[in-house]
C-alpha cells in the first residue's frame, strides 16, 4: 500500500520521471566529449554517419524488443530470426527474384518466426526465455543447414540507398530509424493495442479480466518484433550485400541491454522508446569510441555489462518493498 502520494504524471513517451533518459543523455555527452578529445576522428560526419549505419539493425530490433519487454516477455532469438530472414532474402536474390518480391519475403519470414515465438509462449505456455532460447537454437541450426558454413555473397545493391543514401543533408539511415521509432511510438502510445501491452506487463490476470485478448496481443507483439528483425535483415543485406555465417549472433543481447539501460523494466509494465533509442546510441558510441581510442573492444562489453548490473541493482533496491516491481 502506498504510504505517500505520488503525483508524477505518467508521460510514457519518456519513462515516468524522464530521469533515465536524462541520465543516458548525460552519459552520451560525457562519453562523446571524452572521445572527441581522445581521437580526432570521433566527431566527424563520416564517423558518426558510419556508426549510425552500422547500428541501424540494432536500433530497429531494439524498438521491437522494447514492446516485448514492456509486455513482460523477452525474445533472445531475434538474432536467429534476423539470420533466417537474411538467408531468405539472399536465396531469393540468388534465385533472380526482383526486389519487390524479395523484400516482402524477408519481412514475412521475420514476422512468421516472431509469431511462432508468440504462439509457443502463449498457447503452449512455455516461459518466453525458454521458448525463445529453444527457437534461437533451431533458427541457427536452420541457417547452418541451409548455407552450410559458407557465405551468400555478391548480392545486388538495389536496396543499398536505404542505408547508404542521403536525402539532402539527412542520411537515409536516420530517416529509416525515425520512421521505425515513430511507428512504434504510435502503436505503443496512441493506440489501444499499446495500452494493452502495458497492461499485460503490469498484470496479465487483470488484463484478461477486463476482456483484453491477451494471447492475441502477445502473439502480435512477438510477430511485430519478428517483422522488425526481418526489416533489419533487409537493411543488413542492403548494407553488406552478403550474408555472413555469424550474422545476428550478438544482436539479441545488445538489444535487451539497450532496452534495459533505457529504463524499461525487465519485469514489464514500464518502459519508453526514447530511452531505448538513447541506450542504442550509448552502446554504439562506446563501441566506436573505444575502437578509435585503441582500447580493446572487450572493455566495451565489460562497461555495458557492469552498467546493466548497476541499473538493475538500483531499480531493485528502489523498489524492494514492491514485490511486483523490480
Amino acid at each position, binding site marked *: *500500500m*502506498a504510504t*505517500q*502520494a*505520488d*503525483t*508524477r*504524471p*505518467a508521460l510514457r513517451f519518456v519513462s*515516468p520521471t524522464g530521469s533515465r533518459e536524462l541520465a543516458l543523455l548525460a552519459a552520451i555527452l560525457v562519453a562523446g566529449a571524452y572521445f572527441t578529445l581522445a581521437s580526432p576522428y570521433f566527431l566527424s560526419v563520416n564517423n558518426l554517419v558510419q556508426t549510425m549505419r552500422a547500428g541501424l539493425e540494432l536500433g530497429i530490433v531494439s524498438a521491437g524488443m522494447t514492446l516485448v519487454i514492456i509486455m513482460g516477455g523477452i525474445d533472445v532469438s531475434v538474432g536467429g530470426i534476423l539470420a533466417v530472414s537474411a538467408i531468405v532474402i539472399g536465396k531469393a536474390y540468388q534465385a533472380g527474384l526482383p526486389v519487390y518480391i524479395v523484400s516482402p519475403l524477408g519481412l514475412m519470414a521475420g514476422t512468421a518466426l516472431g509469431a511462432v515465438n508468440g504462439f509457443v509462449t502463449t498457447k503452449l505456455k512455455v516461459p518466453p526465455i525458454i521458448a525463445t532460447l529453444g527457437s534461437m537454437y533451431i533458427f541457427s541450426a536452420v541457417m547452418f543447414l541451409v548455407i552450410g558454413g559458407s557465405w551468400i555473397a555478391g548480392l545486388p545493391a538495389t536496396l543499398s540507398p536505404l542505408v547508404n543514401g542521403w536525402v539532402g543533408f539527412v542520411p537515409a539511415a536516420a530517416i529509416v530509424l525515425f520512421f521505425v521509432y515513430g511507428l512504434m511510438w504510435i502503436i505503443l502510445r*496512441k*493506440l*489501444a493495442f499499446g*495500452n*494493452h501491452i*502495458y*497492461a499485460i*506487463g*503490469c*498484470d496479465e*490476470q*487483470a*488484463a*484478461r*479480466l*477486463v*476482456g*483484453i485478448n491477451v494471447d492475441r496481443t502477445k502473439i502480435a507483439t512477438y510477430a511485430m518484433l519478428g517483422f522488425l528483425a526481418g526489416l533489419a535483415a533487409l537493411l543488413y543485406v542492403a548494407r553488406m550485400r552478403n550474408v555472413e555465417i555469424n550474422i545476428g549472433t550478438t544482436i539479441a543481447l545488445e538489444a535487451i541491454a539497450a532496452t534495459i539501460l533505457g529504463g524499461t523494466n525487465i519485469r514489464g*509494465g*514500464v518502459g519508453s522508446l526514447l530511452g531505448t533509442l538513447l541506450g542504442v546510441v550509448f552502446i554504439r558510441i562506446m563501441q566506436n569510441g573505444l575502437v578509435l581510442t585503441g582500447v580493446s573492444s572487450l572493455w566495451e562489453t565489460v562497461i555495458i555489462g557492469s552498467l546493466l548490473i548497476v541499473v538493475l541493482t538500483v531499480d531493485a533496491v528502489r523498489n524492494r518493498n*514492491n514485490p*511486483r*516491481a523490480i
Partner: protein
Amino acid sequence: MMFKMTGIVKRFGGLTALDTVDFAVEHGEVMALVGDNGAGKSTLIKTMSGAHAPDEGTIEMMGKTVQFRSPQEAWESGIATIYQELALAGKMTVVDNIFLGREIKKPFLGIPFLDRQSMRAKTGKLLKELDVHVPSIDSWVESMSGGQRQGIAIARALNMDANLIIMDEPTAALAVAEVRKVLSFIKALREQGKSVVLISHNIQDVFEVSDRISVMRHGRCITVRETAKTDPQEIIGLITGAHEVRAAAS
C-alpha cells in the same frame, strides 16, 4: 429481479461446497452475504462471477438465463466482481485503468487512435459521481490509497455498464476514514440503481449499508433477513450456529 440463482450445487470431489443455494438480489439493493470461514461465501461469489461453473442450478441476470464460462463473460453480462486484489494495473494511470479494454477511439485516416481527451473527461465525471478523490487522474494507481483504489475499481465497473457489483471484503485492511469512504461508494451505487453484493466479516459495516442480509452456513444459504428488522446479535447467532444450539436446548 436483477439477479437470481436457484438450486445452485457445487461439488469439489466428495465435498459439497454449495448445497442447493438460492440467492437473489433486487434492483438497487445492497445484499450482504455473511457467513463463517468455509461457509461457502467465496465459492458462491466465484459462481456468480464466472470463475466457477455450478454443477447444478440456474443463474438469471435481468430475467435472462445465463451461463458463464469465464469471468469475462460475467463482466459482459453486467456482473462485475471487485476482488480484494482489485485487478488494477498498478503502473498505469487512473484513466488508463478505467478504460482498459474499453478505450474510446477517434479514428483518423481509418486508424483507431485513442481519444484521451474524452477518456479523461469521462473519468473525471465518473469519479465525481462516486465522490472519489485522487491526487491526479494521470497518476499511477499504485501510488494511491486502498480506498482510492476501491473507488477506481468501482468507477471502472460502472464504466463497463455493470449492473451487479460484487465486492469481496472491500473494507478489510482499510483505515477508518477509508472505510467510511468505501461505504459511501456503496450507497452511491444504490442511488444510481445498481445492485451490490457485499461480502464482509464486519457486521457493523453490513448493518450500515445493506438492505438485506443472506447468511451462509455449511454450504447452504440458511436465511435472508431484512436489515431493518434484525440486529447484529441475531445475525452473529445465525453465522455461528448459536440459534441451533438454543433450539436444541429448548
